């Protein structure tokens, strides 16, 4: 693979990981602010059929 293409692909992979990390931080911060059983993530895990 050409260097330019490889670098771009690696950049996209890094950006995907960064987006995932940001989303994880967002979810966990939400959980920390509302630590009851009704937190969104817990609700999701309790009823996964509600989500695609």
């Amino acid at each position, binding site marked *: 693979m050409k260097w330019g293409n490889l670098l771009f*692909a690696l950049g996209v992979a890094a950006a995907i990981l960064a987006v995932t990390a940001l*989303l994880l931080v*967002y979810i966990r911060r939400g959980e920390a602010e509302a630590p009851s059983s009704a937190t969104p993530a817990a609700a*999701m895990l309790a009823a996964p059929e509600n989500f695609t």
Partner: protein
Amino acid sequence: MKTRFVVSVGLAGVWLAVSLYLAAGWVRAIGGALPPGYLWWAIGGMALLPGFLMSAMFFSNLLHRHPPGHPHTDEPVTVILCARNEETNIPLAIRALRRQKYAGHIHILAVDNGSTDGTRRAILAQQAACGPGCSVEYVACPTPGKANALNAGLARVRTPHFLTVDADTWLEENAVQRIMDHIVARNSACVAGNLFAANGRGRLWARMQNYDYLLSIAAVKRFQGSYRSTLVAQGAFSAYNTAEVRAVGGWQEVMGEDIVLTYSLLQKGLPSTYEPRAVGYTTVPDTAGSLYSQRRRWATGMIEGLRTVRPWQQGTAYSRYFTWVNLAVIWLDLAFLFGFIPGVLLAVCGYPCLVGILTLFTAAVCLVLYLSMYRYQRRLGIPFRNSLTGLVGFMLFFQAIQSTAALHGYLTGLAHRKEVWK
């Protein structure tokens, strides 16, 4: 045609409305777990819009009945075959053309675009081997660039219609007859042939593309072609009306010269159609690097086409719809990369908020769509050999490579960067 379009888009609209209703409940249930703007952007690009587009295509193809066949023509035809350092492939391409079961005469213009290998010698050897139904003319075009080579060939065309075939593409023995029957009977400005991977039994990268050509590309072309608005009459194997191509000035020197030409023909309101029974086999990239480069070029070509003819400048309502869809594909690629893949990673981390159990259901729906296209291609009697690893690779990994390369190509196209045909 109009009724079928309205019905299929209407049914897809119903599908979208139901999906939207489910998605609204989903977003409410997630609450503040994810940023709402991001959530709607991701859901729209990885579920709602793909669902609408796929279902419109599915219903339309389901309702479309291909005409049983066209009357045979014996009109003489010219084939433009451009080559740059293709000494290995070009003998196979010309031999396949020489062996065509075509009622008329086939004149092959083999355009040598500054080759430094034995391409000229290979062409002249094929010239000597020609029988009465076929002739080969060697054309030298030292100016580099595929558009230059194609235009050099176009200047020598003396027949009402001509074909373009890539030097690494060989045609099934009835391909020329079928595509010529189609373009003469339907009076199209251009007709795209049905391409498959010639090296589809080779490495995994090539085996995956077998299914891309068989299930995705063919389905889109069939959908667009049934409304006389095929957006790409690919240079690898297509037929053209000579006068119409000359009237739009031939090919432009861009990455996606075949896309820009088709868009220019469509802008004039001319029909661009698809003939699934005209089959060709093209050598597809068999390494990750060459596949990436090819898909990047295709995406750049799409941007070039959209820049040359804006969606609202298209000649018919159908071609306007399809070019808007093409533009929307950029969103789909971004949503796949930055919505779906992070969603899978979140699910692996125990947060199935973007991708979860129901995603398996959408995969099942996708399989149904692919199966319907597979059965259609099978009914056409096209010899096709299956590969389980190719299918699995196509289903699981292909889109990630495709979307990354496409994103790169969009940015290249937007930056007006030019690349050289090698």
